[in-house]
């Protein structure tokens, strides 16, 4: 039996007490996928209810709870941890040429904190639930007699996990780079994880205090956000979005990092604009903190503030555009290999571009007032979060599949699933842009009969999406157990994780490699791996 991280140490106990970043990543992976299934089931139920006007399968109160669960689960338990905690945990130390993250014990603690928070939040399902939406707007969230406090406490706890992961990654990138791995040779996935970590570390504490204050509102009637007690509900919105807008970039920046790795490898060309892509991540992270007010355009914010926030929000499009153009320029005249990860990178580009551009529409004050709280907004952020983050998660899951499991996934099934997901996604969410622009409000259980056709299309799309994800779960699980054995470097990629066996040994590298070049040397005459074994 060969020795790798999967076979090193036997039994459940060795997994639950592991400090190996790779095993922790795998535990995150299965936890995140479980919650993804749960959040997805709620999404399907929502779409089923909306298949026709009036009551279809549930009453209005249940509907309110179901969309709250869907949102809270997908945001806090799935998308935020998905790429950093799963892909980041597994790949970051390998790409650094390190034996582990800087604080392996803290890393395991982060996982248990995440799990504890998620279970606390999920326990509300068996009590009186929660019906506030994932945004917990006051004063309703103070008054509701559902068990919102429990969901708030769960989200509060999960915040610590996110902070500690970010902290661990920042220190790892600073202190654990292999000899020769200078900043200008750092793979772009790590640059994007660095920028993500900064947001996690700076924004999450503000969410923590906001949720804590809201819990106190409910338990001790502190009144800071409660107009009936002299407080200010708009202050809650400011606090909440000061975290939750940057949180969107916690979701999308690592996704961009995955795409930045996949595109040059499958285009067989050096990445175009390495520095521009690296720095633009920090541009996005910086602007992320200055735009939260775009969620308050109709909440009674002053016109001057609206103007400033609108302008700053449009600025986000600049670093984002820099990235998109760089990716496209990388592909230009490349020898493109249409493997599944690359297909998902294309999917990311299509969906994220639509999501990003409609973000600019929404930043425009005149349009925003018209479409606030309509399905246009719902479609926009699903294009960014699902189209961007989940597409990229799928890209990463396939790209690093050989490294995770030492086996190959079936290429044909990968392509079929991609086709299912991309058509299912567009079918589900594109009609919602139209519905929103025609005035269908979000979060409603019912709608006017003239919206029926588009809602039906959207519901059918959600089934295609579900079929795609179930099929992916099926063939990936099978490949994990019985797939063809993977070589160390099946994609002929340069970054360090491909210069160790698949799956990697317990301590990652037989010898710590010495880095002699940047990671994107893909030329006509061949490719040039980043590290050499001394």
């Amino acid at each position, binding site marked *: 039996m060969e020795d790798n991280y999967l076979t090193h140490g036997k039994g459940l106990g060795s997994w639950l007490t592991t400090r190996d970043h790779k095993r922790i990543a795998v535990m995150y992976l299965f936890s995140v996928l479980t919650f993804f299934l749960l959040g997805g089931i709620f999404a399907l139920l929502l779409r089923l209810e909306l298949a026709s006007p009036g009551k279809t399968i549930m009453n209005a109160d249940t509907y309110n709870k179901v969309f709250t669960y869907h949102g809270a689960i997908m945001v806090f338990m799935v998308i935020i941890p998905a790429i950093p905690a799963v892909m980041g945990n597994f790949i970051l130390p390998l790409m650094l040429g390190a034996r582990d993250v800087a604080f392996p014990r803290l890393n395991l603690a982060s996982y248990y904190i995440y799990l504890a928070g998620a279970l606390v939040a999920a326990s509300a399902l068996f009590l009186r639930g929660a019906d506030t939406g994932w945004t917990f707007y006051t004063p309703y969230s103070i008054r509701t007699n559902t068990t919102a406090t429990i969901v708030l406490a769960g989200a509060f706890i999960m915040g610590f996990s996110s902070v500690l992961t970010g902290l661990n990654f920042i*220190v790892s990138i600073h202190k654990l780079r292999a000899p020769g791995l200078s900043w200008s040779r750092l793979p772009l996935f790590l640059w994007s994880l660095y920028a993500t970590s900064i947001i996690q570390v700076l924004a999450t504490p503000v969410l923590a205090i906001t949720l804590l204050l809201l819990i106190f509102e409910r338990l001790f009637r502190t009144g800071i956000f409660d107009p009936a007690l002299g407080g200010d509900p708009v202050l809650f919105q400011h606090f909440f979005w000061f975290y939750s807008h940057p949180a969107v970039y916690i979701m999308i920046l690592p996704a961009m990092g995955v795409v930045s790795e996949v595109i040059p490898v499958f285009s067989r060309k050096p990445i175009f604009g390495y520095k521009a892509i690296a720095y633009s991540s920090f541009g996005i992270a910086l602007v992320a903190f200055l735009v939260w007010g775009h969620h308050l355009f109709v909440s009674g914010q002053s016109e001057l503030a609206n103007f400033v926030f609108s302008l700053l929000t449009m600025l986000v499009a600049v670093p984002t555009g820099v990235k998109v153009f760089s990716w496209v320029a990388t592909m230009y005249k490349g020898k493109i290999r249409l493997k599944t990860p690359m297909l998902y990178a294309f999917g990311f580009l299509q969906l994220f571009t639509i999501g990003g551009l409609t973000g600019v529409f929404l930043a425009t004050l005149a349009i925003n007032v018209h479409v606030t709280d309509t399905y246009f907004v719902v479609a926009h952020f699903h294009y960014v979060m699902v189209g961007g983050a989940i597409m990229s998660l799928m890209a990463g899951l396939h790209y690093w599949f050989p490294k995770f499991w030492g086996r190959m996934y079936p290429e044909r099934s990968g392509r079929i699933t991609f086709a299912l997901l991309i058509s299912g996604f567009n079918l589900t969410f594109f009609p919602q842009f139209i519905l929103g622009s025609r005035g269908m409000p979000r979060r409603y259980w019912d709608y006017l009969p003239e919206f029926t056709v588009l809602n039906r299309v959207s519901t059918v799309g959600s089934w295609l999406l579900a079929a795609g994800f179930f099929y992916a779960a099926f063939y990936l699980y099978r490949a994990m157990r019985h797939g063809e054995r993977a070589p160390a470097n099946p994609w002929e990629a340069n970054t360090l994780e491909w210069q160790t066996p698949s799956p990697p040994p317990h301590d990652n590298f037989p010898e710590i490699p010495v880095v002699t070049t940047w990671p994107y040397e893909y030329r006509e005459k061949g490719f040039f791996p980043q590290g050499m074994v001394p």
Partner: protein
Amino acid sequence: MMSADVSDRAVTAAASHEHESPFAGPDEAFEAAKQGMWIFLVTEVLMFGGLFVAYGIFRGLHADMFQEAHRYLAVSLGGTNTVVLILSSLTMALGVGATQRGQRDRALLFFGLTLLLASCFLLVKYFEYSHKFHEGLLPGGYFRNEHLKHPKAPLFFSLYFVMTGLHLVHVLVGMGLIAWLLKRTVARQFGPHYYTPVELVGFYWHFVDMVWIYLFPLLYLVG
């Protein structure tokens, strides 16, 4: 495949059952731990930052109320606690220095003193809080005081209890950590060659002290 080299490594790793440290040596590990602690303290600043922003906004909106309500806080008790905490920061720093120089008895003395001063802080806070409870000077919806008539006054006490309460939780955590240092110092686990936890707990304790140095004037003095 099983080469001799691979199985050798497996045996040594399995025998020690410890995950290898990712660092080249103890100095690198120490530097990394310090950096991690600084980042953690930044997150703490941001968490309290939210409260300070809320304070600033409500003070801006209701300056007259803050003016009136802050007179109901006991400046003498708050002042005592400020002195107590600053002294405890001094003893903590002396304890850290003693550990670094390998003076174990001195370190024990100063950690003990720090813990004692922290207990003083708790005691004073206990009297302050029970007095407030007695007077009905309570957060928001539970406010019951007869003399303080300003309609927004309950908000001041919400902020007072949340801000000092969160700080108090930090003091309790700090005390736990110092007790843990004491235990490990008794067990001779620290010395000039290894004192990372001592240094980090020191950072944390100074931070807790610093938060109070902002809370005291904002709540008790300027109101």
